[in-house]
């Protein structure tokens, strides 16, 4: 891949499935996921990488997919919100969101779930403060974060 090119073939594992596609170098990962792969669960909420609605996992770490080019994901493992519930069976975190009314319009929710899922993987029983730090890169305009934080703490078995 040493010679610069305006378009590249990428090979990416997305939610456990291998995808091979030719993409323009300039295409953002979020648009690759939404437009090329039809995975519209990952959302765009801003133009400057602040809102986190586009959060996915890249090799297990939460990142903002609007701040990555699709070509940068070549050879990597991507997880999106669509990959959380296996066969329609909601995860404990997703169920907790429902129980605690942690979503209203649902637009920030996929990003929140991806950030929170990553948190719970590395810190299974986070405190409220730790949850707020983990979700600092995810903006919500509906909930004031109150129930979101509660839902994540509860999913971790905390208060």
């Amino acid at each position, binding site marked *: 891949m040493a010679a610069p090119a305006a378009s590249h073939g990428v090979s990416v594992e997305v939610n456990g499935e291998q995808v091979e596609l030719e993409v*323009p*170098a300039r295409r953002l990962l979020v648009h690759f996921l939404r437009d090329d792969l039809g995975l519209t669960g990952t959302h765009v909420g801003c133009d400057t990488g602040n809102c986190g609605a586009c959060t996915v996992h890249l090799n297990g*770490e939460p990142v903002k997919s609007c701040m990555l080019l699709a070509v940068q994901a070549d050879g990597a493992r991507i997880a999106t919100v669509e990959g959380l519930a296996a066969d329609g069976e909601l995860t404990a975190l997703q169920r907790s969101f429902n129980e605690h009314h942690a979503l209203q319009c649902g637009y920030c929710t996929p990003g929140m779930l991806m950030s929170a899922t990553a948190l719970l993987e590395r810190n299974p029983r986070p405190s409220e403060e730790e949850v707020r730090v983990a979700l600092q890169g995810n903006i919500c305009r509906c909930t004031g974060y109150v129930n979101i934080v509660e839902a994540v703490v509860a999913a971790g078995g905390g208060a």
Partner: protein
Amino acid sequence: MLLREVEYARPATVEEAISLLGSYEGARALAGGQTLVNVMKARAAAPDVLVDLVDLDELRAIGFSADGLLEIGAMVTYTQLVGSSEVEVARPILAEVAATIADVQVRNRGTVGGNVCVADPTNHLPPLLLALDATFTIRGSGGERTVPADEFFVGVYMTAVGEGELLTKVSVPPSSGAGDGFAGLTIGKHGTYVANAAATVSDEGVRIALGCVDAVPVRASSMEERLAGGDFSDDAVQGAAEGLGASLDPPSDAHGSGDFRRHLAEVSAARAVLQAASRRKAA
């Protein structure tokens, strides 16, 4: 939000990267992308070629040089800094400050090299590294050179890294009992700085660096001199900070006037020094 056409290359070695950067005019190094991709989305800059440094493992190392300097590869992410035991032992202020940059997602991608090479006057690391007396190793086709912080930062978005060159590592002296501090005002928690200051108090004296008030981080030399006597009481430090603002000509914007930033520079410098002094280990 949508980039102009660009070409992308992913070199396997530092030499390949330098060669690409030197061969294509308008080639830019792509590190974490947390600034560059934004800039390209806004079409405020449009490099012709992006040279992705992701595969250059050589640039991801954190370790110690033969003479005990903490060496941080340019591609080390903020998350890595925060989790590094070497950093915790040698110069924990780096991890402390890195942990306040933006959010987890940005910290997983953003790099030390990116933070300093972008040289945005509001960035966290430039004033901190100036206060810590860090040095910067730059490699080009002609070889390698090391540059001190006050020569590295040249202007707004401008550093000593020239065309066809790459920053490979940042070297920071270990604390050896020095106390470090960092203070300022941000736009919201963990937001962009409006004014900040970094300070180090050691046996060698005080070093104070201010961010956000000029094109590059600046040393508060007069304030350092006033503290040369070693009195770091509240009154002494506040007194030493007086007049610091008057020597500055900071920008005005939606978050504050030049006057407000002059005032904040004094407040931040005093707080950073007090924090550093309180953390200094007795000789």
